[in-house]
């Protein structure tokens, strides 16, 4: 076993995702293959409706894969109980918390649920993890504000802080930059980059900010209509993988600048 293989934390082999009904499976994406290493920041890009969220839901165990296997730390994802999974993998979802009457501190503390006792008492270790999450996301000053008082940008930082408090080696985020202004989009992505490099957490996020993702991520998972590609952003550009993402008559990818341009 070489060092690269040892460091693989999340791996998909010939994975196909979608929804199964009684009559037939409706496959949304198939033949997805990738292996993500510890401490990598990985972006997931693709057009609307291509199946990014479905893939993320499958990777987080919220829905079953139609075919193929997901390995988490070399073990099949299906073998993890939801309780075990909670200490390996945390999520930031697009949905807002059901109750916004929670204070920021309460919401972040909930991230400690996998570790607390039956009634949820916070130990010293829990408090340390919560403080770390507050500091890392610069939300310490917000700690006693209510969630309904926060702006979208602040709320997203709190959601990331909650995942950080859960203290898992992997964090999976579904479109963390949606609804944010350009400053907060850059802020959130830079925060993810910093967390990946400083805490050796593996971070996988889906995004529509393809140009920002190309600049920041270690690897990109590109979901195109017929295939899914996984590689370094530069190699993906060289191979022209972004060209087929969107209909060419409206928008075109410029390989030199790494940006999409509107066609006149």
């Amino acid at each position, binding site marked *: 076993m070489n060092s690269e293989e040892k460091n693989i934390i999340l791996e998909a082999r010939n994975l196909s995702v979608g929804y199964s009904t009684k009559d037939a499976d409706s496959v949304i994406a198939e033949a997805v293959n990738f292996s993500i290493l510890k401490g990598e920041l990985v972006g997931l890009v693709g057009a609307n409706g291509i199946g990014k969220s479905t893939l993320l839901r499958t990777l987080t165990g919220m829905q079953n894969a139609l075919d193929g296997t997901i390995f988490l730390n070399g073990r099949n994802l299906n073998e993890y109980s939801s309780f075990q999974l909670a200490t390996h993998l945390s*999520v930031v979802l697009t949905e807002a918390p059901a*109750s916004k009457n929670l204070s920021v501190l*309460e919401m972040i503390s*909930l991230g400690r*649920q996998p570790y607390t006792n039956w009634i*949820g008492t916070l130990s010293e270790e829990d408090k340390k993890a919560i403080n770390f999450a507050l500091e890392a996301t610069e939300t310490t000053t917000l700690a006693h504000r209510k969630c309904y008082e926060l702006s979208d940008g602040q709320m997203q930082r709190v959601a990331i802080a909650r995942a950080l408090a859960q203290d898992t080696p992997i964090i999976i985020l579904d479109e963390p930059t949606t609804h944010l202004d350009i400053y907060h989009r850059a802020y959130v992505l830079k925060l993810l980059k910093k967390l990946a490099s400083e805490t050796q957490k593996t971070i996988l996020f889906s995004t529509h900010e393809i140009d920002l993702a190309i600049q920041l991520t270690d690897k990109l998972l590109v979901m195109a209509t017929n295939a899914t590609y996984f590689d370094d952003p530069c190699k993906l550009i060289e191979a022209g993988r972004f060209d087929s993402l969107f209909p060419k008559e409206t928008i075109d990818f410029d390989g030199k600048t790494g940006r999409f341009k509107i066609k006149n």
Partner: protein
Amino acid sequence: MQISQTYRLQFFVLFIALIAAFLVNLSIGSVSIPIDEIVSIFSGNGASKETWRYIIMDYRLPKAITAMLAGGGLAVSGLLMQTLFRNPLAGPFVLGLSSGASLGVAILILGASAFGGFFGTLLLSQWSLVVASALGSFLVLLAVLAVTFRIKDTMAILIIGLMFGSVTTAVVSVLSYFSNAEQLQQYIFWSFGSLGNQSWQGVLILSLCFIAGILLSVFSSKSLNGLLLGENYAKSMGLHIKRTTFIIILATSILAGSITAFVGPIAFVGLAVPHLVRQFYKTSNHLVLLPAVLLCGSLLMLICDTVAQLPFSEFTLPINAITSLIGAPVVIWLLVRKRKLFF
């Protein structure tokens, strides 16, 4: 999530208010009994009038205890349902428990004439009402739990519960159509709710159900807090959604089902008290909300019962009307004043 010192103080104040309301409730009624006499009865010294001792021990005390159990239990089950369904309109009876109880009682009362004579009157003793009501809620509970096992989506469970409620209400309507005026009156009196006329055995059974339901709720408080973030987040933090849903519905059914069986379908308390408490406590943490809702529910019910027995008069108003008459303006006033529904 921790319980801070301020909350402890507030609980203490609530508790004192509850004891005060309890004593006032015992003291006031068609016959007014001084509070020092009540204390003397409790300390075993007896009262200056033997009838007072009798009124307190055999009528007012079981009634006051029933009021506290019913108010607290209904309020807690309302809180459980609101959090489980993440819906501020949910209450203890959203899953059709009270409709099930109504159906049981309706079949008993409206069907009793079929047996006629002595057997008919035997069927209509107090215990048979309790048993019929409990059986009705239990059948609806079984149906809802069977659905819970098959369906993942809690919103679907909510709708199915409402449908069960509609069906049982419809059956009751059909039964009422075919029954005579006297039976209808008896059924309607049951549906007004009544805290009085409880035997000590009844209070004991109700207390046991109450303790079981509250224990299940306390055990679920961590899961309930997790559910505040939504089902997907809760699951990602290791919560077993189906098992949690099952336990929460079971706790609600035990609480609301047993209470409805003994005192009838008391509306409003279960829906309103959690909202009242959220306005004052401004938190969604169930470790704070559960005891607060429990105390406030008991307190509100005791106050309502005190008003319902119309001090210094012979009349007793239906408790079900009083809870809404007192409670609804309070909730409206709070919402208008704060202009914000905390949930």
